[in-house]
């Protein structure tokens, strides 16, 4: 049960009713299955000197179940004029933020994801997505998604959230 799904659903219902695409609602419903939506592929570890193939970043950044969003809470910038790693035009990216550790189902690696907020305009309102894997209360600010992370920006007004790959976390 994801109550924010219902909030998001209610806010987007009018749009969905007028649209032939039901992708948004389908995507929100997908939250319930979360990471199970991706097959967990066998991990091909690159040994020393082993030739690596092209990196793979699977999934749709406009959908909440996209692997990078495992600890996100907010409006997806991909639905707001930006992308999963860029802010919408005319906003400002927060230089400090919280991080999550999310597993890329295509390569089996855990990545550190930085959820930089985009700031300076009112709430985007599209594609609300809340996933709380390993989220902690605000006494652990580094892992807390309840904070408006528009800190260190000219305006603290929150617009949307990105999910930027910072690097590979510890192999498991």
């Amino acid at each position, binding site marked *: 049960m994801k109550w924010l799904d219902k909030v998001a659903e209610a806010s987007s219902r009018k749009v969905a009713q007028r649209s032939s695409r039901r992708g948004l609602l389908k995507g929100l419903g997908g939250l319930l299955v979360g990471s199970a939506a991706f097959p967990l592929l066998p991990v091909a570890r690159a040994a020393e000197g082993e030739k690596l193939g092209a990196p793979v970043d699977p999934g749709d950044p406009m959908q909440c179940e996209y692997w990078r969003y495992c600890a996100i809470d907010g409006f997806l910038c991909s639905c707001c004029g930006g992308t999963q790693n860029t802010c919408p035009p005319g906003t400002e990216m927060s230089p400090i933020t919280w991080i999550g550790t999310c597993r890329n189902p295509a390569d089996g690696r855990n990545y550190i994801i930085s959820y930089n907020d985009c700031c300076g305009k009112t709430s985007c309102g599209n594609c609300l997505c809340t996933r*709380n894997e390993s989220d902690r209360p605000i*006494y652990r600010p580094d892992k807390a998604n309840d904070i*408006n992370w528009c800190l260190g920006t000219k305006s603290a007004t929150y617009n949307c959230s990105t999910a930027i790959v910072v690097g590979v976390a510890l192999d498991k």
Partner: protein
Amino acid sequence: MKRQLFLALMALVGLTACGDNAEQSKVDSSVSEVAATTESLKEFKEPASVPVATPGLTPAPLKAEPIGIIKKLAVPYPENWIVAHDAAFFHFLEGKLFVIDPTAETVAEQVKGQISISFIGQFVQGTARPEMYVAETFYTRGTRGTRTDVVTIWSKEDLAPIAEIILPTKRSNTMPQRYALQLINNDKFLLVFNLTPATSVTVIDLDSREVVNEVPIPGCSLIYPTGPSGFSSICSNGGFYTVQLDQKGQVASKERIAPFFDTDKTPLFEKPAIINGIAYFPTFSGNVQPIDLNGTVPAIGELWSLTSDDEKKQGWRPGGWQLNETDDQGRMYILMHPEGYNGSHKDGGPEVWVFDVAKGQRVQRIKLENWGVSLAVTHGANPTMVVTNANMLLDVYDANSGSFQQTLSDIVMETPFVVYGAE
């Protein structure tokens, strides 16, 4: 009555659309929207008694009415009232707090008035003064410009702002929660939690309505009233930090409490239910960590469990936004959900469990009418429990029996994340 309204709207729309087929098609879609909206309206109720003209006599004309009358509220508020904070998640700049009688039948009787709260503000009610306090943020150009952080003092009687205290522009801008703005020392001091993300607490003397101090709380967060004139904060290392203030709001003593939990592996919710000065912090996994805040230094109590072994196997865990509450009988209410997992701690739940905290025993299990996200319980011997449901409507229960009373479906709020029993 509803049908009349619908026909009138149909007629109005029909007139505008006359003679234009393309326009007609647009209008048809409007009509269906109107119909849907009208259908969703609650059945109109005729007033209980409709004045009737005396037979055979022409009614006398109505008297001219005075203009400009603004209602006031009697203070203190009745103990079954609530204050609901709509944080306006989809447009944070414009939140509101409704003062509500949740036991009344109609929206006209339920809604008593409202106050404004800007930019994910924080809220606390005075108990020693007939005042309510809001910590909020404004920009000179709405979403941009120069930032001003302010504590606005609202009169309970007028629901009007009566004073402002300008703050350093660093108040915590987090989702609304009870322990970001607190009163201590019989409401002498108002404490504001700051997060930049460096953390501190601004001390306001409410006698003079001035900021008198800013206390750094490095590595720690939030405000839990502690001892006669102090507070504790919960720290990232799993410990506590405690400060006592003198009568001028200056630091009289400070102390760090050694870590007693693992913030990664066995996290506590930051939202305790405080009963008789003892803070009962739920853990993500379903235990309760009591911490006695009556002395000048917190005393860490023995952990106990909310669940039996069987319930633990079924994955019952606490969860929600404002997930717990207390009543005047010393009971703790907490939202619970089965099949919990890593990340389900804010999901809410289908049941509220009620505990006698002195015995660490469950005394009641309330199956909710709708999935609950946040809860509040009012004061008194016959308290009302109000649950913010997953549709962001407020459900009302008799707290003693657990019986569902009604949904406050006519009160329009977008995201009433935190509800308070009226003080």
